């Protein structure tokens, strides 16, 4: 509690277009303090790591990101449209968007701020409150038209700094967009990212979220997606390399007939703790969900998945399936997985499943019996395991060479 209040006191005065949410977030943190392990959704979290997060300075007073040694962006050169969320800049003014993308004005920002989030008001959204309290930059835009270029959104981080970022994206009717987000971290940096997405009727978003950390870095990311009728949302999320990372996708299908595909991969090693807490709620009939969550845990790492699906009475004829598949590679690693299904509608087809195991002996043996060395066979199988998720990232992701990064680092 004390640490939290201390942190709040050090924040600058609430101001600007984000003033209202800053006040909200601060109030919420003032009263709640740090999450307690008695709260189910934080029970497994190493709460010490949250404290570390609050000990970092805030991004506004720090150096230019170009001085940070994070990722060699040139290596991943881009032909589409690349946006970098540089906390030094006033994002909504300085960033140039290609045609078809239109920034929201102040009134619109106020109108949309928190709108997708409000479908999921939950007092335990600590990750959200931290962002609300501290964020002072926002990028908000709507997307219209056809044949849009794929968009790449890079969220860099800074040494010894907590970088809060906030984005709103509105896809108008029938708009199709590919979006690749890359959140980077290294050394003792931290990300706090909140993204709100509105998909209007028949809109389609193919969303890749790649969070590549390193060192002691932490990442808290909260995604709220509101899907209108017949819209399609596909999220492929990869978390890797963070000392502490927590991704919270919240998806609501507002008037039914939506399609949601969630794929997640978290690869942990060392003492890392990676978590995904997803929620999908159906607020109309004929919706469908396909969710596949994978994890590989090595060394003394800890991988957590909590996947809630809510099917209220109004959501007749929902078809939802969730599968959690986990590989445990070390005796000291730990995997916690908790699918949660809450169903009131009676005419639904919902299934979920979970497996935890090590690599299959017979598969390894088969490869080895063809002359492949054990280590290579293992690596091949792990690649295959990851590929099932990675292949669904937007094509832009190829340049980031994610698969190799993952496999190289898995034994670190």
């Amino acid at each position, binding site marked *: 509690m004390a640490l939290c209040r201390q942190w709040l006191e050090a924040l600058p005065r609430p101001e600007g277009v984000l003033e209202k949410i800053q006040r909200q977030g601060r109030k919420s943190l003032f009263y709640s303090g740090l999450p307690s392990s008695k709260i*189910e959704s934080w029970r497994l979290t190493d709460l010490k790591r949250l404290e570390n997060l609050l000990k970092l300075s805030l991004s506004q007073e720090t150096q230019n990101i170009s001085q940070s040694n994070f990722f060699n962006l040139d290596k991943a050169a881009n032909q589409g449209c690349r946006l970098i969320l540089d906390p030094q800049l006033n994002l909504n003014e300085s960033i140039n968007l290609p045609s078809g993308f239109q920034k929201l004005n102040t009134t619109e920002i106020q109108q949309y701020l928190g709108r997708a989030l409000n479908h999921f008001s939950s007092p335990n959204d600590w990750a959200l409150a931290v962002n609300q309290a501290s964020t002072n930059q926002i990028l908000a835009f709507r997307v219209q038209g056809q044949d849009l270029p794929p968009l790449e959104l890079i969220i860099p981080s800074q040494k010894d700094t907590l970088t809060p970022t906030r984005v709103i994206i509105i896809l108008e009717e029938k708009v199709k967009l590919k979006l690749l987000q890359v959140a980077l971290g290294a050394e003792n940096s931290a990300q706090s990212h909140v993204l709100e997405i509105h998909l209007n009727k028949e809109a389609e978003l193919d969303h890749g979220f790649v969070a590549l950390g390193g060192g002691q870095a932490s990442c808290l990311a909260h995604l709220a997606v509101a899907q209108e009728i017949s819209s399609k949302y596909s999220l492929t999320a990869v978390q890797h390399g963070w000392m502490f990372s927590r991704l919270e996708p919240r998806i609501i299908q507002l008037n039914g007939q939506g399609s949601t595909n969630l794929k997640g991969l978290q690869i942990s090693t060392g003492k890392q703790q990676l978590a995904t807490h997803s929620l999908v709620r159906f607020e109309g009939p004929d919706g469908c969900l396909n969710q596949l969550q994978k994890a590989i845990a090595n060394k003394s790492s800890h991988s957590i998945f909590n996947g809630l699906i809510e099917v209220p*009475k109004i959501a*007749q004829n929902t078809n939802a399936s969730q599968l*959690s598949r*986990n590989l*445990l*590679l*070390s*005796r*000291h*690693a*730990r*995997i*916690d*997985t*908790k*699918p*949660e*299904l*809450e*169903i*009131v*509608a*009676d*005419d*639904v*087809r*919902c*299934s*979920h*499943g*979970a*497996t*935890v*195991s*090590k690599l299959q002996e017979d598969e390894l043996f088969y490869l080895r019996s063809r002359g492949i060395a054990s280590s290579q066979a293992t690596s091949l199988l792990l690649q295959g395991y990851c590929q099932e998720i990675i292949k669904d990232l937007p094509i832009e992701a190829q340049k980031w060479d994610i698969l190799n990064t993952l496999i190289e680092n898995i034994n670190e």
Partner: protein
Amino acid sequence: MASQNQVGNIISQPYKYGFITDIETEKISKGINEDIIKLISNKKKEPEFLLNFRLKAYKQWLKLEEPDWANLGYSPIDYQELIYYAAPKDNHKKASLDEVDPKLLETFNKLGIPLNEQKRLSNVAVDAVFDSVSIATTYKEKLAEHGVIFCSMSEAVNEFPDLIKLYLGSVVPSSDNYFAALNSAVFSDGSFVFVPKGVNCPMELSSYFRINSGDTGQFERTLIVAEEGSSVSYLEGCTAPMFDTNTLHAAVVELIALDDSSIKYSTVQNWYAGNEKGVGGIYNFVTKRGQCKGKRSKISWSQVETGSAITWKYPSCILLGERSVGEFYSVALTNNYQKADTGTKMIHVGANTSSTIVSKGISAGHSSNSYRGLVQMGPNASGARNYSQCDSMLIGDKAAANTYPYIRSQQPVSNIEHEASTCRISEDQLFYLQSRGIGFEEAVSMMVSGFCRDVFNQLPMEFAAEADKLLALKLEGSVG
């Protein structure tokens, strides 16, 4: 049109066990404190170690908080308004059944559990518990010939204090949870089973629990110990009269299985569930846990849960011994405003342990039926395996089915598989059966019992029919 409503109607059945036996009862004054606990202990002429066990538990209970994490939303229980001991007057154990009050025998007859020599269920020994005390235990002598002890807990504490000292509270410590602590402080009676080395218990053992008084909590305690290489199958049944207040039932069951032994524990729970508006009914907050202490030991829980306003129950297995086996087979049927939150915990500690979970939930009316489970693979559980399957069937569009299967693994050389599905009785399936001349009711009943088959197959033969009958009873009635 043969609608889901009709399906709903036919599972809304009047409760057949709702009668009250008019018998003179001795009750102690209500409320709980150290004096009450001393009084209960004194009434039962207990040895000192047990009184100390109770008092310690009471102190722990005072420190514990009543849990609310299962989101059951029940109206709070005033623990000072409950009576913790009620017994038919003149309750000392009779030498022969002829001396037992005929009203009591009649009660158990009506419940389908005849205790008289002539009418007894053959090959089933019964311990009949009425409110806080055990009325009669049948076939005791025959069991004793095989060295099997089957008696009420009250007898056991005096006759076999060493066994009780050794095992009571060894699986469910009194500090385990709020209701276990309460039970440990005030438990009144229950059954004790001890199967010595190498003995396969020659008959099914069974306890029948009957709550008769409206203001009395029932806190029975069951302890089953299977020594090396022995085996036993045990069944409990439960009913209660209809009161419009809620009665608390907080039992503790402990099972201990040593090397190569096996315990099969089956429950047919049909406590009064409250009326169709959700008034009254039993709060069924039970702690059941088995410890597979020995190598290759096996504990199997089977349960058919149809009664109670609220059920809160997670029969669990701690798999300590190498290659030990835990099983959980459950059918839970909820209707009206019933709430069932049930499941299991399989804690794999030893190497090559294995567990199987099969849970079938059927929810109708405004009820809610949750499966909540934990499968945990500890660091030393190498080669451990678990398979879980939980299926839900929804009847009508106001019932809720929730599943919370929790999986935790710290052991790479282990395997966990979990599958779950939700379905309803489809109109096409009903029509197909009807078009072959099978009546609507029977068709629904066939489908529900088909849905539950995997679990019914696990019940002891003598009781499989009983469970089917109980479900059919809940299912039979007027077709709208």
